[in-house]
């Protein structure tokens, strides 16, 4: 089995997958505990709109999708802050809007756009060096935010207490939404639009079931993500299954097992 990892494309897939597991494990607990689980799939659809625009303009799709998705993430946050519309409704509106834009953009291109489909289903086994660099850059950017972890977690626990202690909660909402948007765009290229949200949500939700602390939830989410990527790539290679989907199935398996083992006390 080990010779699998001597294949260069498997090495790249593993590296990309582990970076994703780290990023999703770090941001996922914020997304889950802030009740923004829906945001991941919403932003993935937005990213698809950006990809379609890039294809239409003949530009590298990723470089259009990144600012496009970031703008949608900030727009969703703005609607949440400034109106009485609930977060899930804001996400739903932007989600449908950008997906519709994407469909219109693709139809304008009037050519067969097979490339668009790689974004729907992802292609972790065909990771381009540029995608790998993008995910490593995002990991480096995320490392710079480590000093903010304590105040983000504080505001996630209780926004009002954090605000009373002068945490800039609104600024942090925008910052987190922006960073999650970047994670979603990068992850979409790897696992596909349809499964991106799973990466952000399932490992964190699985870890929540045994974690007693928020830090423990982050560590648990990273571990679940890492295990799923590692085992998922092996299984998908061995049985010739789609790799992104296999990884997500393993995440769901861990989640279910945890739900059965760690019943809620009381």
């Amino acid at each position, binding site marked *: 089995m080990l010779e699998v990892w001597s294949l260069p494309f498997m090495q790249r897939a593993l590296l990309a997958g582990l970076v994703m597991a780290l990023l999703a494990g770090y941001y996922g607990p914020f997304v889950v505990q802030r009740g923004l689980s829906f945001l991941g799939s919403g932003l993935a659809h937005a990213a698809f709109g950006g990809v379609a625009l890039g294809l239409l303009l003949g530009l590298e799709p990723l470089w259009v999708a990144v600012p496009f998705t970031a703008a949608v993430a900030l727009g969703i946050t703005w609607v949440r802050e400034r109106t009485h519309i609930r977060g899930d409704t804001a996400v739903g509106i932007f989600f449908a809007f950008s997906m519709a834009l994407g469909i219109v953009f693709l139809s304008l291109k009037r050519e067969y756009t097979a490339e668009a489909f790689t974004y729907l289903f992802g292609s972790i086994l065909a990771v381009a060096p540029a995608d790998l660099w993008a995910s490593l850059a995002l990991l480096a950017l995320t490392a710079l935010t480590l000093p903010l972890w*304590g105040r983000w*977690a*504080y505001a996630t626990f209780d926004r009002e207490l954090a605000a009373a202690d*002068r945490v800039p909660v609104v600024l942090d909402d925008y910052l987190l939404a922006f960073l999650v948007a970047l994670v979603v765009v990068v992850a979409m290229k790897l696992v596909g639009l349809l499964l991106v949200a799973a990466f952000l949500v399932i490992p964190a939700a699985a870890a*929540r079931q045994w*974690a007693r602390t*928020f830090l423990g939830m982050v560590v648990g989410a990273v571990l679940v993500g890492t295990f799923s990527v590692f085992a998922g790539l092996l299984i998908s290679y061995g049985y010739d299954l789609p790799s992104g989907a296999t990884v997500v199935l393993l995440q769901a398996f861990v989640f279910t097992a945890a739900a059965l083992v760690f019943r809620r*006390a009381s």
Partner: protein
Amino acid sequence: MNAAPQKGSPAVEVEHLTVRFGDHLALEDVNLTVPAGAFVAIVGPNGAGKSTLLKVLLGLVPPSSGRVRILGRPTDGVDPRRIGYVPQFKTLDRTFPALAEELVASGLRRAWPGRLTPAERARVRAALERVGAGQLIGRPVGRFSGGELQRVYLARAFVRRPQLVMLDEPATGIDVLGEADMYRLLEDYQRETGATLLMITHDWEAAYHHATHVIVLNRRLIGFGPPERALSERCLREAFGHVGHAHGFAMVLEGERRA
């Protein structure tokens, strides 16, 4: 920024404070000055603007007009470590994985802790022990009863040794600490530190017995002063409307005064 205590200044000064939410008037032209070291009870019907008043003092809600100073400074010029806040427990997110020691430590750090240093843990333990909750230190807050939460939140507020403590209905709604216990904890802390306490409560009788000052609020300031003056039948009737309770309470106090 110089954060040294402003000696001699009142704990809270409110001048012509008005707060509007859209076209809803939550507070209207409120004026009051709370001397340092006071124990103030804030009473008023639901929706009277009691929580809004605390939130203005905490810097969470901006005044629509008027001026507010706490500990001798404008709200945004005060070091938040000098302020303790006990929110209403109904805001607690029980799905968030948190241990009592982390909740209390967040009061020290003004951030959520990953790992506590030994020095932090010692202070957290001492704070929990002084409210009789030392045994809760390593337990998850999501499963605490109202009384347990009340103690842990008090420890969270006290751990930073604040000079001004604000409590939003710390004794309402859930099975709570023996009320006598809670007032003893508050009064002990106050005796030790000379801090000023501001507490929203629905219990007029407790306010009468424990507070040095009472604020009777119903959008406007209806009464402010020593309990026997502020909790007069006239003020309570004006604030609460229903004559029966106010009259009944006045009779109770009248009886106590004679006895």
